[in-house]
């Protein structure tokens, strides 16, 4: 199980190829260095990544790793569900400061879409080429499990055929402040985690088949991304 031994690689869990993460070595609860953040931006495949939120780059990196084996047809009805919604704050903060200081005429239009809470999910969709809905979803605790439930409902209702649920944590100063302030999670960690779901029945089957990964997902990442249980 290589889930937490990533060393900045875009890693798939070898025991369970439908779980992937982009993270820092040994789940060290540390921030990525500026150099490492640049590396993640480059690896993410996000166009004009410097203007995107870092959370978008982390999420895209994780989901790219997860979907390497998927064909374009597999992506036609694949939903991207990003849990939590404050990922946009670092980008919004810079945009707001510039607007307040220089006025509307000097804000950067390229940065504009990234100030929205929905930017992480749609950026991921653009990178991987998925054509199902791309949503940011805010839920009560634990959000990752809530995201799984929503995905199951959408698939069961026939609204989409598969989904990737993404948890992402950007420990930049504004995000850390935001997350800690809202007591959602200890935001001292840069990372993203993604899980592929393709049918309600098979979800349960796949979770049972990889109990170790699921334990880590819900017990460790659940706390990281969604606050205390």
């Amino acid at each position, binding site marked *: 199980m290589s889930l937490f031994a990533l060393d900045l690689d875009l890693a798939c869990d070898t025991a369970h190829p439908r779980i992937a993460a982009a993270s820092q070595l040994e789940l060290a609860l540390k921030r990525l260095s500026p150099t490492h953040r640049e590396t993640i931006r480059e690896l993410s495949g996000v166009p004009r990544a410097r203007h995107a939120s870092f959370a978008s780059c982390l999420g895209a990196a994780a989901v790219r790793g997860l979907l390497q084996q998927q064909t374009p047809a597999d992506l036609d009805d694949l939903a991207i569900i990003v849990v939590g919604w404050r990922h946009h704050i670092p980008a919004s903060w810079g*945009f707001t400061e510039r607007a307040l200081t220089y006025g509307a005429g000097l804000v950067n239009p390229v940065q504009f879409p990234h100030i929205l809470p929905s930017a992480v999910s749609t950026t991921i969709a653009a990178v991987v080429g998925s054509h199902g809905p791309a949503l940011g979803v805010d839920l009560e605790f634990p959000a990752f499990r809530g995201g799984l439930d929503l995905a199951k409902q959408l698939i069961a209702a026939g609204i989409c055929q598969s989904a990737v649920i993404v948890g992402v944590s950007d420990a930049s100063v504004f995000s850390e402040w935001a997350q800690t302030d809202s007591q959602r999670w200890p935001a001292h960690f840069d990372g993203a985690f993604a899980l592929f779901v393709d049918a309600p029945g098979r979800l349960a089957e796949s979770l049972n088949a990889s109990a170790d990964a699921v334990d880590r997902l819900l017990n460790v990442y659940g706390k990281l991304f969604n606050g205390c249980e």
Partner: protein
Amino acid sequence: MNPVRIIGREAACNLGWNWDDVWAGLLRGEARVASFSSIRQPISGLDLQVAMIPDLDREVLDDPPGAGATFRLTRAVLRSLESGTIATKTRLFGASNHGESDALIELVRAADGAINRPHADALLPAMASDLVRIHAPDGMYLGGPVWVYSACSSSLHALALAVASLAEAQGSEETALVVAADALSPLAVAGFYRAGAIARRGCAPFDPVSDGLLIGEGAGAIHLGSSTGGSGATIAGIGMTCDAGHPTLPDPEATQLERAIRKALTRANIDAAEVDLVVAHGTGTAANDRAEAKALERVFGQGTVPVTSIKGMVGHCMGAAGILNLLVAERALVEGIAPAAIPSRDAVAGVDVVLGSPRCLERRRSALALAAGFGGNNVAVVLKNEN
């Protein structure tokens, strides 16, 4: 797909604080606009026309922390429904484009020392969704609210999640309430202004000379149930796709929008010929309207179905835009009349736009409501008239 019945609805925007007033204003073709610089706001260079609610309180308050205009809009439509149709066993689904962005502006100003706000930190967790959690009375709603962010398609995505939730709860007495709101945000206005998307000559959806959108503000709420009752309109099919292309512009060929419409029709088990009205996203930008017209022409044929847009009157209400379109589609089916896409004078090729004055519908079997958002999200919802 099992039909879901609409059992309550409410709306607020520049045309009024309740849905009946808004609908009456739409039929009259009102377009109440004002300069954004007429209200006190901290970003310079925004002397632009917007569809503003004149008596909306825009102060960011500390009780509850961070409560601003978006919260007040959300609360207004929720309270109206809560005093009417809401019973127990209701799940709440919310939607917004930018949430309480004025709270973020207050935070930045406080951090920069521009204003004195001793407990500014408290504003942040109170933005939008948390505020509604504070508002929601204990025991009124099942579980915590689910809050959806997909830019201007947010409310119809929230609707889809509500419908999926009801499908899972089929056989129970559970209902779902979808609420969406966005107040005018100086950040959004600045962003659209710099993107060159705001109309200089007046927003005229589907008009070949329209040069941009009119930004608005508003809220909408819809109460859904799977049992009998309500007005007679049901949500019969939903299709959702994503262009997965440009961060702000729609795919000019509208391939995924067409897919979303066809999926909604298939799930509603109807042919395109059975659709008697389309309430389009119709922003008034050339990029959106031409792409949308292409998709509609491919699905329905050239000029065979009336198409309207309300954004020339109420403006683009961002996260609430989709649910307002849905309410218009439902009311048009029930009353047999569609508001015009005022002030459009002419229409791009391929679509039969309702121009000039409202049009009586020859038939009212079903209607299609559309919404699209930044990042390429498309949502299509088919409503059936069960009367």
